């Protein structure tokens, strides 16, 4: 196995584009993930997160641009790139007719982990994700949270240096989500693993070192959670004026700060000083007022808009739905 050509960033994505028919799924996406970092890719459904991850794990080829894993180009040296990756897909990709141990062992075989190391790693990882007692149960008897934990264990049976997790906490209860994050942190500390995670749970992102917000295939923002809040977070003043005249006057007076106006409500962009000033001046003219401090959630909504992304189910989703109701000979 060739060694890494340089000790650059763990993941480098440079101007990667991907087109499906007429939709541009990725439009010149660039970012870097440093070694031993927890990097979150945040975006609404259909933003291009999964497409990007599939390019990184060499399932898809980018139309243009360069993506590197540990210095290896995913198009030119896919095998070298893949052997450094541990991947947890969005949908569980365990064989649920095999037992927990068989799944891990098969993964070890497929990734060429020598027998002795394989046995040791499997034991370690089962302990890490607390599934040791379940080793001989078939996967179909596991709950979805346990399956997720098993998949994380599996991604670490070989010498993975970089972990890609595609929405690993979707549909899991708070306890399991919390536990999964604690595993990830331990791995970062103990094995020095770099983690790239996609999610749309904004709360989870706060704990990451770096956040990259993407939507419609473009990088909208890139920085630490604190930086993002500072840069894009906008304090908002939500005002309910007493009368219609007050409404009209306030709207006219602060026209340049106007963010949104409805029949009863006015929303002004604000900061601490302005909120103070506004209250002293207009305290008598308003019925209710609330100050919205920036959260990552509001940053996210500012960047990506508020509308819901509806999309018809494609062949893939239909197959998935069929499998979920217990379609024959599949799972």
């Amino acid at each position, binding site marked *: 196995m060739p060694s890494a050509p340089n000790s650059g960033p763990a993941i480098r994505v440079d101007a990667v584009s991907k087109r499906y028919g007429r939709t541009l799924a990725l439009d010149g996406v660039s970012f870097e993930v440093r070694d031993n970092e927890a990097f979150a890719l945040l975006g609404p459904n259909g933003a291009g997160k999964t497409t990007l991850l599939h390019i990184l794990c060499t399932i898809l080829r980018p139309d243009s641009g360069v993506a590197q894993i540990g210095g290896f180009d995913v198009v030119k040296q896919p095998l070298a790139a893949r052997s450094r990756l541990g991947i947890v*897909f969005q949908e569980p990709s365990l064989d649920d007719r095999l037992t927990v141990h068989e799944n891990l062992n098969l993964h070890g*075989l497929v990734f060429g982990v020598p027998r002795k190391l394989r046995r040791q790693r499997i034991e370690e990882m089962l302990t890490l994700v607390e599934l040791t007692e379940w080793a001989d149960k078939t996967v179909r008897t596991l709950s979805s949270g346990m399956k997720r934990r098993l998949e994380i264990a599996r991604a670490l049976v070989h010498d993975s240096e970089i972990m890609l997790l595609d929405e690993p906490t979707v549909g899991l209860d708070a306890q399991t989500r919390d536990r999964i994050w604690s595993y990830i942190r331990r791995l970062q500390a103990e094995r020095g693993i770099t983690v790239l995670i996609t999610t749309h749970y904004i709360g989870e992102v706060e704990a990451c070192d770096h956040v990259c917000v993407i939507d419609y295939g473009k990088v909208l923002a890139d920085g630490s959670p604190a930086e993002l809040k500072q840069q894009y977070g906008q304090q908002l003043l939500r005002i309910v004026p007493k009368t219609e005249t007050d409404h009209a006057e306030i709207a006219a007076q602060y026209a340049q700060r106007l963010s949104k106006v409805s029949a009863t409500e006015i929303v002004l962009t604000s900061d601490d000083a302005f909120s103070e000033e506004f209250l002293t001046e207009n305290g008598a003219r308003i019925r209710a007022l609330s100050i919205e401090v920036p959260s990552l959630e509001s940053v996210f909504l500012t960047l990506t808009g508020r509308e819901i992304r509806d999309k018809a189910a494609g062949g893939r989703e239909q197959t998935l739905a069929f499998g979920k109701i217990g379609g*024959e000979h599949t799972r």
Partner: protein
Amino acid sequence: MVQLGGLYGLWLREVKRSIRDRGQLIGGVSRPILWVLILGIGLNPYFRSEVYGEVTFVVPFTYLQFIFPAVIALNILFTSVQSAVSLIWDREFGFLREVLVSPLWRGTILLGKVLGGATVAVLHGCLVLLLAKFCDVSLTVPKVLETLGLMALLAFALTSLGVVIANHIRSFQGFGIFSNAVILPLYFTSSSIFPLDPALSREQTRVVYPEWLVSLVEWNPLTYAVDALRGALIGYNQFSPGLGVLVMGIACVVLFAIALYEFRRV
């Protein structure tokens, strides 16, 4: 070395999961019983003609003997295509996705899948052999070995065929369509359940049977596989004895090559 270990792992996985699939196993057992015991015994008396009170068989075998090798082919056909079709799910969501991002070559992955599927199919073919006694087919060791070899060739070719089909399918909502659109047509036109009378010349055959049916049967590669199995088990060949092995060998190579070519782009 990694490739070999991976190949073994994938093969083992395929075999293990099939053995644990109770639905598939029930199909593998009940199908031959239905065909042999119900259809075979039911049609047995009609498989002969009486001329002036003298009973003559169309071919010098009972219908049960005649249909027995074909039922082996049928069982292999079902199981092969079934395990290949699971590739659709596997590719999009299941385990295969995991393997596609491993350091294994695409060729290794496909070979593991096809070998595993073929192994299971041969096992299901062997289930039919257990019924030999009821069909008055005597089994000897060389006969069984020859049959096993033919079954392996057939199973490999058919699993590859299944993969070729699966490669083209993006949305999967059930196995029924494969059974109706691929398996049964192939089976029925393979001279499996009725013979093209060997006593007749080509011209005469085309008089007795409609032209299109004769052509279909002659064009269907499975015809030659069934014929080879008959040769091995009851010593009856409609075509020259080596032809079946040749056709199956070519089918194995060609179908696997097509499957691999398309699978590399997955």
